[in-house]
């Protein structure tokens, strides 16, 4: 059975929401068997389609197979945002047109100088610990983020945020040092989820890490590390966003949010009916899963795409010509379109993805594959000798560049295959690319983060606007460090351009400035794009109403329900 609708007790079948638990080990074994059988039989695992007049059901348990397990439910990583949006509500939500719509804030306005934002909060909202949502609680949350409670929220608002004030129980004011006209859409990201002030003040950091208290559609029941997080329906939910598909608490009783890191196992678990929905469908399986009757959802995340940033302060890429030579040496489009099976979109722009407002196609088109030009640039830069293995040398030193990447989390299996293609194509121009897969623990622990340790940094950073440029390209100065500046590139001209854009209220004028910043990055070959980061879901046909929130593409289960 591909899904788990509730059963009536009288029919002798399992009761709703309390089906026998299957451990991930059993799931993996079943999945492996399914893989083998599927391998023998071709695609296999066709989804059983419900009748056209199938009735929606209330209750049941969604078993969801997710790829990566974060350290905490709430935090600064997109995998945490996916989880925390099930439990915490934001002030705003993002609609399909990229506009902010009410969530916990029912309306908002900015002052004429753009420095004060006033939010009017919904009435009658309670956190799941029984405390009320108040402007003071939200103000407390904002200060909590800015004091380190959420690293990503901190880097977004840092340099703009001054203070938060509760004018009364339901009126909140955010005071900025500089205008930030896209603040309302920025707050729609999962990093800005509002927690109970009482919980933040009285519970341990570990408790708030594993089971934060919000006002969301679900609550955290428990977390079996390495296996799953169990979320239970919040029956008193009253604060659904304006773009929700229904008013009221969630239809299902429970979500088993399982961590199934192997992509083949994830797909097999969906086919076997062990899961009702899975995240991150591998490119090679995407067409077959859709053809077999599973619903597929695909969201191109906004913000920085999967890209390569060059180290501009140490090593061979301090020379702009060498950076450009590397860019010209790659047939990135063909690599991505071949390995990505036509599912993963090629992205030439290293600054922002094509779904980001203000995207510059000119920046994306700066470097086409041109091997002779790459070689000419290298020779002009003094890398004019070639050793016995075909690599270029200068003063007897080989043109070796180190490319560490976070293996399995930031760069998934498809991404790793694309990087191997990059390595091989750059070799034709004489680059020796030293690919270094780094385990997530090492990567997040700071490995290869210093200029002396790497020549290229691979990775993405999702956002809802081109304001991500401020996060990624603001100067890294001693007084105002910016550890997200992966190219270690300090340029006041670029920073001023981004700051101007961030504070420009007129959307067209703002996009033009963001476009100029992207072209500046491309012209100086500071970063080159590879592919747009996708958030994909595959869902059983018996589970309806699953959608992807528009800020980051995470699954929304508040509207999900089984059909008979």
């Amino acid at each position, binding site marked *: 059975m591909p899904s788990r609708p509730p059963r009536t007790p009288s029919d002798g079948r399992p009761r709703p929401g309390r089906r026998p638990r299957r451990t991930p080990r059993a799931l993996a074994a079943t999945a492996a068997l399914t893989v083998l059988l599927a391998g023998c039989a071709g695609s296999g695992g066709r989804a059983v389609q419900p009748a056209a007049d199938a009735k929606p059901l209330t209750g049941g348990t969604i078993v969801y197979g997710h790829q990566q397990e974060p350290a905490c439910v709430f935090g600064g990583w997109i995998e945490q945002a996916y989880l925390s949006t099930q439990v915490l509500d934001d002030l705003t939500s993002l609609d399909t047109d990229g506009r902010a719509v009410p969530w916990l804030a029912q309306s908002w306005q900015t002052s004429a100088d753009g420095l004060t934002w006033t939010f009017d909060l919904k009435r009658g909202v309670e956190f799941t610990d029984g405390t009320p949502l108040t402007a003071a609680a939200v103000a407390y949350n904002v200060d909590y983020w800015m004091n380190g409670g959420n690293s990503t929220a901190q880097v977004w608002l840092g340099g703009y945020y001054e203070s938060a004030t509760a004018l009364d129980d339901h009126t909140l004011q955010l005071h900025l040092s500089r205008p930030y006209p896209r603040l309302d859409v920025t707050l729609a990201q999962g990093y800005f989820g509002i927690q109970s002030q009482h919980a933040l003040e009285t519970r341990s950091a570990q408790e708030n890490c594993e089971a934060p208290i919000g006002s969301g559609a679900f609550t955290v029941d428990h977390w079996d590390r390495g296996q799953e997080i169990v979320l239970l329906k919040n029956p008193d939910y009253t604060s659904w966003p304006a773009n929700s598909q229904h008013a009221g608490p969630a239809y299902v009783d429970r979500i088993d949010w399982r961590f199934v890191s192997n992509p*083949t196992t994830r797909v097999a678990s969906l086919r076997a009916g062990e899961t009702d929905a899975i995240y991150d469908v591998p490119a*090679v399986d995407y067409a077959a899963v859709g053809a077999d009757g599973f619903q597929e959802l695909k969201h191109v995340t906004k913000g920085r795409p999967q890209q390569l940033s060059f180290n501009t302060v140490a090593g061979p890429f301090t020379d702009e010509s060498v950076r450009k030579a590397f860019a010209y040496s790659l047939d990135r489009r063909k690599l991505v379109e*071949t*390995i990505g099976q036509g599912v993963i979109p090629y992205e030439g722009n290293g600054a922002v993805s094509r779904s980001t407002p203000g995207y510059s196609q000119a920046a994306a088109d700066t470097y086409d594959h041109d091997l002779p030009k790459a070689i000419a640039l290298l020779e002009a830069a003094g890398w004019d000798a070639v050793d016995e293995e075909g690599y270029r040398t200068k003063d007897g030193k080989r043109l070796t560049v180190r490319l560490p990447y976070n*293996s399995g989390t930031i760069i998934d299996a498809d991404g790793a295959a694309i990087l191997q293609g990059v390595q091989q*194509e750059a070799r034709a121009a004489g680059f020796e690319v030293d*690919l270094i897969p780094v385990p997530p623990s090492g990567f997040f622990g700071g490995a290869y983060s210093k200029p002396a340790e790497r020549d290229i940094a691979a990775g993405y950073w999702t956002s809802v606007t081109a304001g991500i440029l401020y996060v990624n390209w603001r100067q890294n100065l001693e007084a105002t460090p910016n550890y997200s500046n992966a190219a270690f590139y300090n340029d006041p001209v670029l920073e001023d351009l981004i700051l101007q854009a961030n504070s420009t209220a007129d959307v067209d004028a703002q996009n033009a400035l963001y476009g100029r910043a992207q072209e500046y990055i491309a012209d100086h070959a500071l970063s080159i794009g590879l592919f747009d980061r996708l958030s994909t879901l595959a869902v059983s046909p018996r589970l309806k109403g699953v959608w992807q929130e528009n800020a980051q593409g995470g699954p929304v289960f508040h509207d999900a329900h089984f059909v008979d």
Partner: protein
Amino acid sequence: MTTTTSAPALPRFRTRAARPWGLHVALLLTAWFAVSALWPGLLAPGDPLELHLDSALAAPGPHHLLGTDEAGRDLYSRIVHGTAPALAIGFGASLVSLALALLLGGLAALAARPVASVVDRVVEVLFSFPSLLLALLLVALLGQSALTEAVAVGVGTAPGYARMIRGQILATKSSPYVEAAVTLGHSRTRILRQHVLPNAVRPLVAVFALSVGQSIVWASSLSFLGLGVAPPSSEWGALLDAGRLYLTHAWWLTIVPGLVIVVLALTATTLGKHLQASLERNDR
């Protein structure tokens, strides 16, 4: 005084000689593996990492004998060029394993009781860790490389061999010819050098051949778990790991490297068994 009394009984593998054709096939395969490892260009002239993006995921056929991977890299070339790292890891791990086993097993059997007791406990502690877990720990500590993989597999499999060597030495020590040598008043060093060690170590020649195959399987397991040689190495376990994403779409990416690993392990095992049988015949 003689050293020609009955041969040591360990290791206790089935000693029934394989049919000659099995040996002949194993020798032929050994020759193929040797050429692949030493002169891969003779069997696969192309660059094993060369991309053929227009032929990505091509099934085995006339242009690509064993098919291609997701980037169009020729699997046959990668298998051939992956032989050297696979054998290097296999031999390296076996050397590490047997060297460590000789040290621990020798100390446990020959050292003074307090030292032997400590060594026994150390081996027991090592035994309590599953070999793969021990190998995983070492890879985590030392980082990913072929050398680390060889050391990790070697250390992981050493306790079993250490026990075997200890037993072998103790059995030899209590044999009649050693007792005779003691009675004749030979020095301890002489007895060890002339009688105990040669008879205890001789079976290890066969064990070594057997352990090469086993080590290659272990090393491939580590690579399969993503803890072996970094991609895009053509090491077979790494190929197996990379291919599992395409299991239902390109069977050759997992089946072929898996079969090659099995064939090499069987080849080494067959040679080892024949070597063991041959040694035992000579001893009789």
